[in-house]
Every structure is written in structure tokens, then in C-alpha cells.
């Protein structure tokens, strides 16, 4: 076998979205020689599609805001299943990350006095989302990309080589993490590097590094209707599983309530929540604003009771409650689903999102320019003149790689870190809009920082990569060429997407999920026979055949965990178990790879009880909705 191309680094970041780039900048700033490996061109990450903004309690628009309120909103949105320590760190550090981004050059919409403007968003008590029109994600990525160019030009001056300390390997896919057994623990592993291939040439490449940060994003391409881009094939989740790490909370998948349902070619494409934040309302086929019928008890006090009050809120938020169109995403998605099911949907199985009758055309064009463009250009729909037809679309996975809340390190695999959507815990059972971009920055930075710290402490005690693992990874990667013509990887992928959409989608039933697991077994067998033609150079069929392994592993985790959790909470709705159970809140489902047969094992974990000072941020009455009696704080004396 010919010699494989090798590169040696201190920290290798896999993924070049917001979390990956922030991690890389941090690791490089800590003095690490850092590599970023990404599947697409540098700067084309899925993060660019985030429209709404970055949630951070800077209090620029409403000075009542602070990290405690942000923390509370995040926990409520996640139905108390969040790793509270992550939610705490996130709320505390998000403002610093936004200010930092601004000093790096990011463009933001401004308040009259020149500070960063903040907008309202579902589930956030105050206007909290720093934004640039509706292209905040694009600006975030561009700013981090610009920062990296700046750092590289510094290095060019210092070392004569712009890539001396930070290099981006673009259009390369990692298929395996390389590890050696960790002598310090019985079944743990230690990172030695990563194995992958160049998409252009198909040639293999090995990165030797004692620390790897996974920042590969989500899993949406396992579902038929999704707002996610092609990269979202669960790569990081699968790489972590295969290296011995665990995934938690995988049953919680967020279906964004307002994806396009018509015309067919744009099915799944997102309509940002800011359409609702800026006045857009949801109506059924009878023209009724049905969301008023779907305010759950836990939110009754926080949302308007009448259309009049909801409408007043847009101009006078201090004296009115917000309209229920701005409930957390899971509530809105379920409500739309229920309306459609009861026969009050649009001709194409959605509901109407109406902004045209609410705002003048020029205001819509000014406030929602990208949305206006997107609909006109992708679907020939003029949102200033007609309502949109929308319905739930697979948008985000709350679950992900189990990490230490402070350091982003994955237990069980020394030297492995994860940040952003690929990591689990932060958002509990449901993520609030705007909390994703802030998550990327807060935990991307932390992952880079602690990976650097780990490498520094490691000193010279690095371990060599195991040649046997490289050979195995290479054999695994070329296997589809030996299966020529056996199974079309595209057909297997389509059937996987249909299965997940139909059987493990927004409303779940025991029998259907069991059926899904049976079908996933069949698809696994077929995927193993997926064949490709041609050569390894830029061969998309081959790439998909390799991605199938990841999508199938992740889908199995989702289906198994969803079948196990017999309650409804956030992004997991069981028709056969409609209630939320305080006992189930004490359960975190962790998925790990079974040692012998490549199946997924489920383990129940108990989350750590929330610290008393954080618990004290909530009324006891509210806590009763989430916690068991034994978990509730003692009643204060003299309170009524």
C-alpha cells in the first residue's frame, strides 16, 4: 500500500462552521498549531443559513435583561432537561462573545445610540437577538473567516508562512478518528489523530494530533423534509460513537414550525422566526389565528389571551403579553401538526403564515429582505402580496455527543472535544431560536481553549497513530468500489429519509418506531452492499455511500431513544404518552456502540441536580411542573 499523506498538528478541528472556526481561533491563539478540516469550501458552512440572530443578554434594548433571565428562558425552553451548567455558562458568556465578534468586525444592526440592536424571538423574555437583517449566520461565518485570514497574515509576517499555525484543509472528509487504548482507564481511548480523504482526488490523508475538536453540526439529512444542508449527515456524532464516546438526548429533534411546504422543490426551506417576531401570524384554512388555542399551562401567564393584546405587544411590550405565535418552536410545530391533522390545513398540508395583510409591503421588504428575496427567487412567491404555506421541517438535533459542560471534553475518549450542534446537553429537549449561534461561539471557544490546555499538559507524552487503524480505515473507505452495482446509495438514502420522516418524525408512536428499527436494520444491510462506479476523484456517489454509515448510526440512536422515552417533552412527542413526566426528567438516555456487533446500546443516566442558587431563580410553582416532589426545594417559611 502506498504511503498515505500525513500532517501533524497540535489540535485538529473537524468542521468549519461557527463552532469549529471559533475553536480553531482559540486553539491558535493559545499557541497551538491548529488545522481545520471541512467538507465544503471554507466559508460555506451551514451556519450561514441562520437568519434570526445571536441570543445574548446585553440588555441594549431592554435593560431588564441579564444572564439569569436568559438562563431561565433557556431552561424553560428545554423543559428542564438541559445540562444546567451548560445553560448557565452559555447565558453568562454569550454577551462577551457577541462583543468580541463586533470588535473583530462583524456588522450588526444598531440602536439609535449606536449600540448593537436586539430583536424579540420565540421563548426569550426580552429583545435579545443581536442581528444583521436576516443574514446573521452569514455575517458570523464571514467575520470568523476574516479573523482567520487576519491571523494567517500575522503568521506570514512572523514566520514567512501564513499557514504556519492555522491551516484550513477544505473539501476533505474525515471518516475515522484514530485512537489508542488509554492506559489510565479500563475501556477508555486516547485520540491520536483522524483519517479522511480529499474529495477532489479521493486520496487518503491522515492527521496526527493528540486533540480533536468535533464541530460537524447536525443530522437533518436523515430526514426527508429538512432545512439542513447536504453536510448534515451526522458525521461527528458517528465518529464519536465509533471512537467510544456516547451520544445523549438523541430522541430530541427539533422540527422548525415554519418550513415551506409548497411549491415542492422548496419543501423544507425555512421561514425565519423573525417573520413572526416582526408581526407575521399563523392562520388555518378558516382564517383563524389558531395558536391562541394551543397555549400550554406552563406558558399561560406569559402569552396574550386575545389577538388585540398580542397585537399591542409589538409596540408596547412592557404592558402586554406576547402573541402565542412566539411560543417555543416545539409548541408551534405541534399546533400546526394538529390543525393539519384535523382538516384545517392548507391544500398542501401546511398552515398559512401571513405577513402580507399585517405590514405594508415596503416595511416587509425592509425588515425581512432576505426572506422576501428567498421566496421570490426560490419559489416565485411574493410574501408582501400573499401568505406563505408552512409546516414543520427537521431543523436541529438537541441531542449529541456527551461532553463535560465546562471543558467540552468527551468522557471516555481522552483528547476528544465537541462543540456546537454536534454536542448534546445545552438545549435539553428543545432549543430556543437564537441560542444556537451563541452556543457555537461560547462552546466553540471553550473547546478550543481546553483542547489547547490538554495538549499543553500532555507535553511530549503524545502517542503515535496505529498503522493498523489506518489500514482498516482505508479498507473501509474503498469497500463501496468492490460492490459495483449492487445497491444504489441514493436509493438507500431516500428510503432512510422516508423511514425517519414517516416513522420517527414529529409525532411518534411505539409501533411505528419499532417498525423503523426493523427497516433501519434492512437498510444497514443494503448500505453495506452499496456500490459505486468510476474513480475516487470527486465521486459524489462514493461520498454518499460512505456518509450512509453515519446517517444510519445516528438514525438508530434517534429511533432507539425515542422508543425508550415514554413521555412527551420538547422535541419528542409521543402520541401514546402525551404527558410530560417529572420522573422522566431525571433520565438522560445515552447511546453507545455495542462492543461486539456494531449496534447501539442505550444506557440511562441521572442528570446532576441543579445548584440551589440557580433553582432559586424559579418560582416554586413553576418548578412543580418539571420536578418531582422529592426534588423541589423546601417551602420557605411564611410564604403563601
Amino acid at each position, binding site marked *: 500500500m502506498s504511503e498515505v499523506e500525513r500532517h501533524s498538528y497540535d489540535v485538529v478541528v473537524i468542521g468549519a462552521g461557527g463552532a469549529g472556526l471559533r475553536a480553531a481561533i482559540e486553539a491558535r491563539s493559545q499557541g497551538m498549531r491548529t488545522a481545520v478540516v471541512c467538507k*465544503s*469550501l471554507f*466559508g*460555506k*458552512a*451551514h451556519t*450561514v*443559513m441562520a437568519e434570526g440572530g445571536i441570543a445574548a443578554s446585553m440588555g441594549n434594548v431592554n435593560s431588564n435583561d441579564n444572564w439569569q433571565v436568559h438562563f431561565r428562558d433557556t431552561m424553560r425552553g428545554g423543559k428542564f432537561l438541559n445540562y444546567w451548567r451548560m445553560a448557565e455558562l452559555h447565558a453568562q458568556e454569550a454577551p462577551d462573545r*457577541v*462583543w468580541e465578534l*463586533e*470588535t*473583530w*468586525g462583524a*456588522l*450588526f*444592526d*444598531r*440602536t*439609535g*445610540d*449606536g*449600540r*448593537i440592536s436586539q430583536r424579540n424571538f420565540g421563548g426569550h423574555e426580552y429583545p435579545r437577538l443581536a442581528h*444583521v437583517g436576516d*443574514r446573521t*449566520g452569514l455575517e458570523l461565518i*464571514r467575520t470568523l473567516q*476574516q479573523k482567520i*485570514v487576519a491571523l*494567517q*497574515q500575522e503568521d506570514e509576517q512572523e514566520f514567512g508562512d501564513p499557514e504556519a499555525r492555522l491551516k484550513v484543509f477544505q473539501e476533505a472528509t474525515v471518516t475515522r478518528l484514530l485512537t489508542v487504548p488509554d492506559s489510565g482507564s479500563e475501556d477508555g481511548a486516547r485520540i491520536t489523530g483522524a483519517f479522511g480523504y480529499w474529495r*477532489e482526488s479521493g486520496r487518503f490523508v491522515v492527521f496526527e494530533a493528540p486533540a480533536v475538536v468535533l464541530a460537524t453540526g447536525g443530522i437533518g439529512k436523515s430526514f426527508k423534509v429538512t432545512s439542513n*444542508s*447536504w453536510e448534515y449527515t451526522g458525521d461527528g456524532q458517528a465518529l464519536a460513537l465509533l471512537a467510544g464516546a456516547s451520544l445523549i438526548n438523541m430522541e430530541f429533534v427539533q422540527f422548525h414550525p415554519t418550513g415551506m411546504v409548497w*411549491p*415542492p*422543490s422548496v419543501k423544507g*426551506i425555512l421561514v425565519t422566526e423573525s417573520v413572526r417576531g416582526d408581526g407575521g401570524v399563523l392562520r388555518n384554512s378558516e382564517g383563524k389565528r389558531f395558536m391562541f388555542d394551543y397555549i400550554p399551562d406552563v406558558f399561560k401567564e406569559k402569552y396574550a389571551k386575545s389577538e388585540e393584546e398580542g397585537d399591542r405587544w409589538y409596540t408596547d411590550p412592557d404592558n402586554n403579553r406576547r402573541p402565542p405565535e412566539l411560543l417555543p418552536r416545539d409548541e408551534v410545530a405541534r399546533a400546526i401538526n394538529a390543525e393539519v391533522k384535523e382538516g384545517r390545513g392548507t391544500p398542501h398540508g401546511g398552515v398559512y403564515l401571513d405577513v402580507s395583510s399585517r405590514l405594508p409591503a415596503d416595511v416587509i421588504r425592509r425588515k425581512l429582505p*432576505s426572506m422576501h*428575496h*428567498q421566496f421570490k*427567487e*426560490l419559489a*416565485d412567491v*411574493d410574501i408582501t*402580496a*400573499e401568505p406563505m404555506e408552512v409546516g414543520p421541517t427537521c431543523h436541529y438535533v438537541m441531542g449529541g455527543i456527551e461532553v463535560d459542560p465546562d471543558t467540552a471534553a468527551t468522557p471516555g475518549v481522552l483528547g476528544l472535544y465537541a462543540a456546537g450542534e454536534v454536542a448534546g446537553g445545552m438545549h435539553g429537549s428543545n432549543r430556543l431560536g437564537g441560542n444556537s449561534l451563541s452556543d457555537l461561539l461560547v462552546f466553540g471557544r471553550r473547546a478550543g481553549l481546553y483542547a489547547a490546555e490538554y495538549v499543553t499538559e500532555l507535553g511530549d507524552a503524545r502517542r503515535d497513530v496505529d498503522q493498523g487503524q489506518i489500514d482498516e480505515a482505508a479498507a473501509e473507505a474503498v469497500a463501496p468500489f468492490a460492490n459495483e452495482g449492487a445497491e*444504489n446509495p*441514493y436509493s438507500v438514502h*431516500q428510503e432512510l429519509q422516508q423511514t425517519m420522516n414517516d416513522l420517527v418524525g414529529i409525532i411518534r408512536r411505539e409501533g411505528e418506531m419499532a417498525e423503523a428499527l426493523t427497516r433501519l436494520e434492512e437498510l444497514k444491510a443494503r448500505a453495506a452492499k452499496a456500490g*459505486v*462506479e*468510476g*474513480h475516487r*476523484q*470527486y*465521486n*459524489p*456517489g462514493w461520498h454518499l455511500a460512505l456518509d450512509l454509515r453515519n446517517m444510519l448510526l445516528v438514525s438508530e440512536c434517534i429511533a432507539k431513544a425515542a422508543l425508550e422515552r415514554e413521555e412527551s417533552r420538547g422535541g419528542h412527542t409521543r402520541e401514546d404518552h402525551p404527558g410530560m413526566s417529572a420522573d422522566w426528567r431525571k433520565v438522560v438516555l445515552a447511546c453507545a456502540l455495542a462492543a461486539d456487533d456494531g449496534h447501539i446500546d442505550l444506557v440511562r443516566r441521572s442528570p446532576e441536580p441543579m445548584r440551589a442558587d440557580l433553582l432559586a431563580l424559579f418560582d416554586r410553582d413553576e418548578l412543580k411542573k418539571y420536578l418531582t416532589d422529592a426534588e423541589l426545594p423546601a417551602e420557605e417559611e411564611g410564604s403563601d
Partner: protein
Amino acid sequence: MTAVIEETPSAPAAKPARDHTPVVITLRIRRYLPDLVGPNGEPAVPFWQDFQVEADPTERILTAMHKIKGEQDGSLTFRRSCAHGICGSDAMRINGRNRLACKTLVKDLDVTKPITIEAIKGLEVEKDLVVDMDPFFQSFKDVMPFLITSGNEPTRERLQSPEDRERFDDTTKCILCACCTTSCPVFWTDGQYFGPAAIVNAHRFIFDSRDEGAEQRLEILNEKEGVWRCRTTFNCTDACPRGIEVTKAIQEVKRALIFRRV
């Protein structure tokens, strides 16, 4: 100005009913398969290949290409990512004009004739519609596309008035898709020209009230391969899928160079 700009008629007041009757379209795609060498080792040559696909008129060209890849020829190679017109991966030359495949609707093209699809011009083709983007990104890096400031970093944000922020709004919309640069006849004949996209990204900082590096960037663009090579043909403005007034931005940089004032 000598350029001819296609006028888009304004939309009629009454909304016409959309037609969703599927049509069969022919995509005539410029293929280049570098490993298709001749029997005596002759290098591979590009060729045209026709594919027929059934498509809804409101469907995007990208969707049709995915159908070809999935159902007819798995070797067809092109870049794509978000499919929302925001990442800027799928720029290609469709019927002779640079566009994003994900933002080009079937109904906006003449489907009675084959629709030609080629790689964007002026960059080396690696395979089918995939070109080597390195020279393009190098030009982007060469204009110092990052905020240059002096003094201490503030602990919170720098202040910027809404008016100052608005001043460079247009050029911050760039998605680095290369539609503009590879539609520029100057760039086709002179690969060293910075090209419209790099100038747009320089403009984004030159006119940012927070930035102090305007002089340096203007000097870079004052060089031989800088803004003076622009011949104001407006191809770039026409090609921009984000509606950026690219030519205007280039003119503003030229004016700043003449008057040394931003």
C-alpha cells in the same frame, strides 16, 4: 456607460396562477472527467452531454441536477451546500449567464431548447462544474478583508450609528460565490486582476466607520491589477445573485482613490 442591462419588467399587479404541470427539460452539461484519458495517455477532453429530466416549472435547476446525479449518472459533479442561495457554492454558467443553480427556476428559462450548463469561466476546471477556487480566494485575502483598528479593544461594542452602518450594507451581502468575478471579461483575459468580488470585500471595510485600514487597502487597489482595470461593463452587477451593486461599489472605490476621501 456602454453596457446593456437586461430590464426586468415589473411584476403585474394581479398574481397569475402558477403552473405546476411537469415539463421535460434537456440539460446540456459541459462535462470534464480528468481520468478519462485516451488509449495512449492523451489527456481528457471536455464534452457536452445531454440529460432529460422531468421538472415542475417552479423547480430549481439544482433540483434537476440532483435528479440526474441520483437517477442517471452518479459521476456528475458539482458543488452545492445550503441550496438556499446563501452559501454561494453552486455558481455555474447557465445559458451563458453566471447564476446559482439553487436560485434559477426552470420557468425562467426557455425549456423548448436545451439548457446549457458550464463551469464558471476564468478558473481552472477540476471536474465537470467544479473549478479551482484558490486564485479567487487569494484575491479576497489580498485586500486585507478584516477590520483594522488601533488602540485598545473596547470591553463592549464599538458604537456605530445606523447611518454609518447603512453606508456599507450592500457589500456585506457578498457570499463569495464568484459569479461576479467569473463574469468579468477583464478577469477572463487577465487572471491576475483582483476581480469584482475582492473589490467588493475591500469596499466593505473601506467604508466601515470603525475601520482604520482604508489607506492600505486603497493602495493595494491602486496597483496595476487593481480597480483601474475595471472597464465598467456591469457584467458583475448583472451576475450577482445577491443583488449587490458591484459596479457601483467599484466606482466608489475609484472615486475614493481619486479624492482620497471615503
